[in-house]
Structure formats: structure tokens, C-alpha cells
């Protein structure tokens, strides 16, 4: 396949996954606000901080405010990572590789684009209950994954797409988890309190992990939840599971290239095994926030190296 196509399908899937996760981010807060005791006010700053765009937010909108935060994350053209910009980019990538995807995949991406565009035009962030709008976006993304899985042949194109999606998902799950670090508790003693646990379970729900967690662990504990979202091998949104999936796709691609294990495979494999042998108690002792930040950095490095796999043509010429 064309290198440019591999690049585009990788980014198309990353952007779609980002759209879905931003819609989920919103859900963290909607979930939280439903469970808050009457005297505790909603917190929107932690959400913006975890996306990594707090400085941009400050320069554009100044003080934190619910409507502005929803606008910034959902619709702001000046935020390169807003849902609006991500769906726009996903669609542009999809257009660029239109012959590689099915009509059904294209139509669903196009549908999502018009959904968000209309939401922007109708100023959905000012709605009394904007939550339903973001749930619709999330479902639209999930429908797209289903159509993708059911109609796209398992060629290299599919696997490049998978890698993009899994890297993005691992990153975003780590960020959802990090929200907890930034949410302020009324007092240090509140760690382990019912309010603390309410917040943890809100995180679980926002990544659709509540039911699977309950099935596995029963009791809600902060360490159990972090363990589940970082280190669980079976849950499809856990950071480790995402890396395992990405690695499998990478192997399929290099396997079809003649079995040479390349640099990106090595880097991804290292990161995966670090998670595999990690212990959640150690992570908590050395600091969850620092651990997650470190992970995000390494994931970025892996992502950069993936492009060696995509644009490998120069060494092919040399060999000739």
C-alpha cells in the first residue's frame, strides 16, 4: 500500500479514537457532578489539564467555566484537539484514502462530521443537558468501529489503522486515570473516603469499565481501579491491552514484510513488557501521576518511530 495511505489511515483512526475519548472525558465530569454531595462544586479544570491543553485554554478563555470548558474541548476551532477539529481531520484523512475504505465506513465518518458540525452551529455547549449530545458522538464512534471491523479486509491498511487506534486509546485511558490526580478533595484525610471512591468509580464508568471491573474485583478500591485500567490483560481499554493489540498488528505488518523485527517493534515491545511486569503498589508508592506522565512520553516516542515502518522506501532503494 502507499505510504501516504498508511499514514492517513493511522491518523484517521487516531483522530476518531480521540473524538470518542473526548466525548468520554466530558462524561467523567457529568458522571461526577451527578454524584457530588450538595456542598461540593463541579470541577472542570482537571479535565482540561489532563488533555494537556490547559495553557491554550487559559490564553483563549481565561478563567475556568463549565460552558467554556465544554466549548473548548468539544467545538473550539482554536483547539487543535477539540472534537470538532478531530472529526474534521479524521474526515479529511478518510477523504484522502477514500478508495481504501468501504462506502459504509466513509458514510459513518461523514455522518459524525455533520453531527458535530451541526452541534457547533446550534451551540450545543449551551444546552442544559449537553451530555446526551456527547453520548451520541460516542455511540457514533462505536458504530464506526463496528462497521470498520465488519467490512475492512485484514490487510496492512487495517493494521496500521489498529495501531493508530490502540496508541491513542492507551494514551487517553492514562489521561482519564490522571484526572483523579488533579481533582481536589476537600481535605487530605478524604483519601479513601466515600467521596474519593465516588470519584474513582466515575472514572471507571467513563471508560465503560465499571461492569467489567466489578466482575473481576468486586470491591472498589483506588489501587484496584488503577491496576485494572493500567495493567489488566483482558480489558480492551486498559493501557496494557491496547499495547498488546498494537504490537500484534505491528507484527502482522512486519511479518508480511519478511519477518524482520524493526525498531518500532522493539520499542513497543519494551514498553509493553514494562507494563506487564509492573506492580500497582510500586506505581502508587512512586506516584501515579508521575508514572502516567512517563508512560505518555514513551508512547509518543513509539508513535514517532512507527513512521519508519510506513516510509521505509529509501532503504529498499539502497538494497537494489
Amino acid at each position, binding site marked *: *500500500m502507499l505510504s501516504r495511505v498508511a499514514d492517513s489511515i493511522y491518523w484517521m483512526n487516531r483522530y476518531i479514537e480521540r473524538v470518542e475519548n473526548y466525548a468520554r472525558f466530558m462524561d467523567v465530569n457529568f458522571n461526577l457532578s451527578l454524584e457530588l454531595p450538595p456542598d461540593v462544586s463541579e470541577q472542570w479544570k482537571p479535565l482540561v489539564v489532563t488533555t494537556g491543553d490547559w495553557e491554550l485554554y487559559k490564553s483563549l478563555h481565561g478563567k475556568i467555566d463549565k460552558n467554556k470548558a465544554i466549548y473548548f474541548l468539544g467545538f473550539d476551532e482554536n483547539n487543535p484537539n477539540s472534537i470538532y477539529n478531530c472529526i474534521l481531520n479524521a474526515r479529511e484523512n478518510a*477523504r*484522502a484514502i477514500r478508495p481504501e475504505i468501504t462506502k459504509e465506513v*466513509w*458514510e459513518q465518518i461523514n455522518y459524525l462530521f455533520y453531527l458535530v458540525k451541526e452541534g457547533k452551529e446550534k451551540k450545543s455547549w449551551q444546552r442544559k443537558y449537553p451530555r446526551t449530545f456527547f453520548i451520541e458522538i460516542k455511540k457514533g464512534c462505536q458504530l464506526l468501529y463496528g462497521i470498520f471491523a465488519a467490512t475492512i479486509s485484514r490487510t496492512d491498511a487495517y493494521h*496500521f489503522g489498529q495501531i493508530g487506534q490502540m496508541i491513542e486509546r492507551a494514551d487517553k485511558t492514562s489521561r482519564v486515570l490522571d484526572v483523579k490526580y488533579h481533582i481536589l478533595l476537600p481535605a487530605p484525610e478524604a483519601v479513601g473516603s466515600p467521596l474519593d471512591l465516588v470519584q474513582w468509580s466515575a472514572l471507571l464508568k467513563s471508560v465503560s469499565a465499571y461492569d467489567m471491573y466489578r466482575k473481576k474485583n468486586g470491591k472498589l478500591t483506588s489501587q484496584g481501579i488503577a491496576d485494572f485500567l493500567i495493567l489488566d490483560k483482558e480489558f480492551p481499554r486498559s493501557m496494557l491491552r491496547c499495547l498488546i493489540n498494537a504490537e500484534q498488528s505491528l507484527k502482522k505488518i512486519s511479518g508480511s514484510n519478511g519477518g524482520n523485527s524493526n525498531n518500532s517493534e522493539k520499542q513497543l515491545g519494551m514498553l509493553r513488557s514494562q507494563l506487564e511486569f509492573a506492580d500497582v503498589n510500586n506505581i502508587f508508592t512512586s506516584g501515579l501521576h508521575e508514572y502516567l506522565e512517563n508512560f505518555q512520553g514513551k508512547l509518543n516516542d513509539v508513535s514517532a518511530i512507527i513512521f519508519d515502518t510506513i516510509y521505509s522506501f529509501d532503504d529498499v532503494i539502497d538494497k537494489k
Partner: protein
Amino acid sequence: MSKLGFSKYDTKGYYDEMFDEHNNVRPHYALFKERLEQIGKKKLNFLQHSTDRAQLSIGMTFNVYNDNQGIERILPLDVIPRIINSKDWDFLERGLKQRIYALNLLIDDLYNEQRVIKDKIIPKELVLSSTTYLKQCIGLKPPENVWCHITGTDLIRGDDGQFYVLEDNLRCPSGVSYMLENREILKRTFPELFEKLNVRTVYDYSHVLRDMLDSLSPNHPATIAVLSPGINNSAYFEHSYLAQQMGAELVEGRDLVVRNDFVYMITTKGLQRVDVIYRRIDDDYLDPLVFRKDSMLGTPGLFRAYQKGNVVLVNAPGTGVADDKAVYAYIPRIIKYFLGEDIILPNVQTFICDEEKDLKYVLDNIKNLVVKQTDASGGYGMLIGPKSTKKEQTEFIKKIKKNPRNYIAQPMINLSRVPTLSGGAIEGRHVDLRPYVLYGKEIKIIPGALTRVALKQGSIVVNSSQGGGSKDTWVLGNNNL
């Protein structure tokens, strides 16, 4: 239910494709009229609404501005089809085949023996000084001696009911995706009519196109690529659509490299050779080493690979020389010269100001004529006599006298009309017709076309940028209608 009627439908002054001058429905439209009258106003407007939505959903859009925040528009598809009976179509087919055959001989001759110049059929300066004459192509012989493999000729029907050729589009004619997708949409709108009317299918266009492209290469199956300027091009939908329908690679200039005069695609598994390129990039932008140096759209070395016969370019570079306005006027003589036949599908009458008799006529009748500067396009350097002021006419007379070779003139032609949905009512709107001709080992014409329609009342401008829309075009099989 509010009924749709044609009692108020006005055909006065124009040739109407559906009704004759006595307001009787033409036989090939009778069944359609019957169906339309059963539907009712509300349902028809609903059907129209559905077609708009269908176009958006499949992404049949074009960018108005050159950035991804730009406004995307659809080319509105009117639900009322333009129907052509088999007798008319047979005539068009014969006429187009003759014309394309002769035009290819002309291009080949101009870049090789130049007999047509030596025998004084066309003035030498007219061709050789034209910017569309590419000196780099002199002496080239493309496979099968075919230069323009894909043509989209613009036809119109005048008051007299006669079809005329308005323009030969021999470079990168666009719009065929609309012919194909309009049909897909209309099949859902009027499913029952297709069978009853024996509408000929356009479905196999992409297969015929692929086979034609494949036939031009010595390697089979050939690796075929559609070369597009990219997603910001207004015809991008068509580029991706055709690549997809043919199962060809959709590439941009940056996806290609030339090594040792062979063309390769840059893939995740290294370089892969390309045999045939259906390019949707103008000659000027193909190769910065040979043509425009600032072109970012093409691929350095592409033209040399083409010269060496290592890749086939479709259409061949250089075809623009034959769709020049000045050359157009000479086509009847060119057909006679190469084929010894009279032209079947006539040109619009054209006065060549460089010829004394014509010049006198033009100067005397300028207020009734459309005068065109031969080296200008896109409506520039043009005088529409009936709509011009006395002052403008005097200015043009001066210009023509000073440099007669630079001008041609044509009578104003009223384009025929087809009933069209407008604000809930049905009114006549002017249309043109663009069929698509494929030329590989032989000439093939798919029985269908893009009909462009001027949606604004009274307008004769069918261009998409100026309020134009399109119609599905139904060519009927032989059932005596």
C-alpha cells in the same frame, strides 16, 4: 394531495425536451409524465430532498475555497431526468465517433508530419504559436497513436431541435462521476421506470475505462494509478470515486518517484512500478523539470519516463492544442480532410475573422453575435452582442480590425430546456449535454451523459460555480420511442 400539473408549463420560445411546440408530450417522455402526475407535489419535493441528502452522505461535494475549513457544496441534482430517445442517441454516437477519430488524427499529425499545415487546411501560426501546442511532444507516438483517450464533449440543442458541439474537452474532462452517481440516486427515486422505459445502463463505465487503460500497457494486468492534485481539488470526489470503482491506486504527485526513467509508487513495502497513469493534473503541472518549475503537484522526471515509453499518460500531454477555440472553427474542414466525410454532428456556426468574407459579416452584425478571443478562456475576452452596449461593440470592432486572427464569432444559441423542479413548481430550465467518449483500441461511448442545468430562471450558465445543477440523463434502448 396537491397534484402536479403541466397545464401552466410554458414552452414558448425554446425547444423543450419534454413537450413539442403544441404542448404535446414527446413520446419518449409520456410514461414519465404519467408517473410524475401520480406522485403529487409533496412526494416529489420529498424525493428532491432525499437526493440532496444522499449526495451529502456519499460526499459528492466540492470545496469552494482551497482550505479544509472551506465551504463544501453539492452540485444540486434535479430529480426530473433528461431523457434522450434511441434515435437521437444513435445520431450523437455516430457524430461523436467521427469527431473524436478525426481529432486524434489531427493531434497526431500536428506533433508529427504536420500534413494539415502543409496542405493549408489550418493556418500554421494559429497552431504552432498557440500556448497549448507543447513542443516537448513533437515526434512522440503514444500507444495505438491515441492521444485523447477520454473526452467529454459539450453539446447543446438549439431552437431548431438540432444538436451542436459547443466545445471539445480533450484535456481532463470532469463530471463522469456525476453521470454514475446521479444514476444510482435516481434508481432509488424512480425504480419502476427504469425497466418500463428500457433505460440503458451506465454501470459498466468504470469497467470499460479500466480495460481501456489496461490495454495501453504491455504489462497485464497493468498497475494503474489515478493521479490527483489532492483533496482540495474541486474534482477530488471524482478522482477518488473513479480510483475506487476501477480498483486503481489513487496517488498524488508526492506518492510517485522516478528512478532510471521508470515511475514508482512509494509504498510501505518499498517502490512499486506504475504502468498507466490516468492523470487529472493539467499538462503544465505534470513535471517541474519540463513544464512549470513551481509545480508541487507533479513528479520530477515523469515526462521523461513518458517519452521513453515506460509509462502511459492518459490523456497524453499536448491534446489541448485541438480544443483551442480557433482550431474549433476548422473542425468541419479537418474532418473532411482526414476522413473525406462531411461532419455529422455540426459545430455551432463560427465566423473566422481572419477570413475576409467572415470578417465583413462579423463587423456588420456584431450586435447579434457572440465574439470570442481565441487565446482566452473562462468567459474572458468575450462580447455577447445582444447584451452589450454600443460602446463595447465599437471597442470590439477596433480590436478585431487590429488583429482579426485573434477573434471568432458565433450566433447566440438558445439552449433547449427540460422541466425542472423550482421552488415546488415545475418550470423549464436550460440544459447542455456532456457524453463521455473512451478511446483505446476502439472508440466506446457509454449510453449516458452528464446533463448540466442552469437552475436560475432565464439563465444559460450551467457552470457549477454559477448556480448550475445536474440531471440524470436517460438514454432509452431501442423501443421505438
